[in-house]
């Protein structure tokens, strides 16, 4: 297979490990954008999801947010983000990409936080209240630890979505690994294209595996991991 040989040669070329288009720089750009997007999404979605889950209000909204989230086409989000970014003077590149990917992480985080809290056995919460825990105490010391596996798996789904979609940022002159794919397609350089695609795929799988490992480590051994809503 000459394609594989070409791709290997592409990776071996020291020129691809130097300068502003270096592989490690592109990976860092990709992770920087994705990390910030997941943090922003959590900052928005976790408080809302935890509040709705704790009080049990607006369950209809929380569950439907997930379905709407699945319908959001990533390229359309980018299309909407671009005029917004220009309107507020943030221009091309990093910011429109960030605006486009944050909404992809919000639905799974919000819905899993809500479902995680709702799934906590009502008797346990009753018992906690009976023992004199405040509402905040119930949330922090009972509901959160029990819901943690589901909350984390929501964040994992969101993170994988974000890493996948951050690739499209290259279309609006952003950095990240999408550069290799978009440039490879434009220049018809299939070694660059294939290498970029491989890097993105591996990064997404690595994020998935890293989060799964973290989830297992962070889950209290007393509770069996339940299957997530996603």
């Amino acid at each position, binding site marked *: 297979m000459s394609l594989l040989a070409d791709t290997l040669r592409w990776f071996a070329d020291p020129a691809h490990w130097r300068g502003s288009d270096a592989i490690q720089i592109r990976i860092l750009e990709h992770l920087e954008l994705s990390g910030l997007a997941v943090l922003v999404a959590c900052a928005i979605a976790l408080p809302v999801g935890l509040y709705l889950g704790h009080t049990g209000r607006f369950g209809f909204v929380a569950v439907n947010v997930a379905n709407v989230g699945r*319908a959001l*086409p990533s*390229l*359309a989000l980018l299309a*909407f983000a671009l005029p917004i970014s220009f309107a507020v003077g943030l221009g091309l590149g990093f910011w429109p990409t960030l605006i486009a990917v944050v909404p992809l992480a919000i639905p799974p985080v919000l819905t899993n936080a809500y479902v995680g809290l709702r799934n906590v056995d009502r008797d346990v919460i009753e018992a906690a209240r009976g023992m004199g825990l405040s509402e905040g105490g119930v949330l922090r010391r009972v509901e959160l630890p029990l819901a943690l596996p589901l909350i984390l798996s929501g964040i994992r789904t969101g993170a994988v979505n974000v890493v996948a979609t951050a690739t499209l940022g290259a279309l609006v002159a952003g950095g990240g690994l999408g550069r290799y*794919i978009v440039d490879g397609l434009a220049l018809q350089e299939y070694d660059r294209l294939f290498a*970029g695609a491989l890097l993105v795929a591996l990064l997404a799988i690595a994020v998935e595996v890293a989060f799964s490992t973290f989830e297992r480590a962070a889950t209290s051994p007393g509770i069996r991991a339940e299957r997530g809503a996603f």
Partner: protein
Amino acid sequence: MTEGEPLIRWDWIAGHLDEIAFRLGQHVELTVIAVGAGLLIAFGLSLLILRTPWLEAPITWVTGTLYTIPSLALFALLVPVTGLSVLTAEIGLVSYTLLILIRNIIRGIRGVPADVREAAVGMGYTRRQLLWRIEVPLALAVIIAGVRLATISTIGLVTVTSLIGQGGFGFLILIGIQRFFSTELIVGAVLSVALAICADALLVLLQRRLTPWARLA
């Protein structure tokens, strides 16, 4: 996005209805083929899993991994092999439907009450009759729920295939981004979301039509 240019130029839309209609056709075609082929493959794999349960883990692992690979990366990996073609787009699109469809088909068929199955066997149904006359109809609501999800996500993913020369409404988005022309990209984005909503509504109607007994419950 250019100074002095309105966000939407209605005269552009009026002058490009042919183009928009063509992209609509392309979008629907790519989606229907992907979900149709996905459903056939998923159904076959599901039957295989139901008969040989140890296959469930490897098949779920493979379809799950495919699902995790970002769409643009999957299309890009295929381009050197199958070129900038409809085939490349469809292989990618079909891959993404499998996880959702298999999960729902299996959940649906496993959810058929054992009593019902026993009664059918007692009445002399063969394995094939049991599948087509009892299990599939009773699982239909769950299966169609899977088809709805697969259709919505496929309609979104079709927009990404614009990068490999296909794309439906995604083509308008891509050209809009490249030309810095907000009308075209907004038209593409709004119509692809609208198409997803319409397709979902149609499938809900189809499900009501196909499972009239569900309304009584």
